[in-house]
């Protein structure tokens, strides 16, 4: 897995053609709400349990 592959997958998932350019000012003071963090943690736990089977 390379840096480019991570970026490509991210862009594909979000249906974007290029990475958005965000200024520091856009995220300064941005807090992650509890429900968003809870959703993230739940996905983290589930990704450990559900493995996708390849070949």
């Amino acid at each position, binding site marked *: *897995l390379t840096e480019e592959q991570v970026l490509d*997958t991210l862009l594909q*998932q979000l249906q974007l053609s290029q990475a958005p350019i965000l200024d520091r000012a856009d995220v300064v003071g941005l807090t992650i709400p509890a429900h968003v963090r809870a959703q993230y943690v739940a996905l983290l736990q589930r990704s450990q349990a559900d493995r996708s089977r390849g070949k």
Partner: protein
Amino acid sequence: RFSQNFRDVAGRFLVSDTSTHLLMFTMEQRLQPNSELVQAVLRLFQEPVPRTALRRHDRLAPHSARARVTIEWLRVREDGSNRTSLIDSRLVSIHESGWKAFDVTEAVNFWQQLNRPRQPLLLQVSVQREHLGPGATSAHKLVRFAAQGTWRGEGPGEPQLELHTLDLKDYGAQGNCDPEAPVTEGSRCCRQELYLDLQGMKWAENWVLEPPGFLAYECVGSCLQPPESLSIKWPFLGPRQCIASETASLPMIISMKEGGRTRPQVISLPNMRVQKCSCASDGALVPRRLEP
């Protein structure tokens, strides 16, 4: 005879009418836990048609001397209902006799996916007309396969299931790489740690909020190749390669700008982290998932 690990499983005849046979194979402990099924072959002995019957058929229907033989895997579901999956189908001639081989690898793959304790492997063999409509003949009635101990009582004509397997102790991967030992070209296939630092990536700056980085892992090293005799036997199997056989997704929190406002959003990227590395033959059958 051809594999490192070769087993013959004798089948039992359960039901038989003029066109359908149901074969049952007790399979538990036939496939070792640390083995990979390369191919399963069902061998049926086609009995010779008596000359008088053959002559009569040739006189009445000189242009059609074939029947369609179909192999299906039969699964008895928990509610007692049956479900069949088509495995192999081919035309056989009534003028031939002797052993006929059918590839039933997929049926055994399906059977391996059943919950334990697993029912025996049930294979339904149907002999049907080559085609329906005008010109259809009854050649199919002349195709008979020997049942258990019935082929004139002379030889082992009963149905056989051959399981060709590879022992993963030799032909498989070895789990995680030893962090103390450097991986060389000759090293055995293993999972090696690979940390991707998202904070150090320019494009991720101010965009990817979580995680700062993650252990992606990678599969490195090489796999033991089967002897050349097996490559001749199964030309469809390419070289065994060290590949990611199980992967996990990577959740992320990213910042999305919408209408001049930035808000955090959770997404999940599939197949980002390698969970398991395996040695797999390029071109090998990818097992179909068993449907409910």
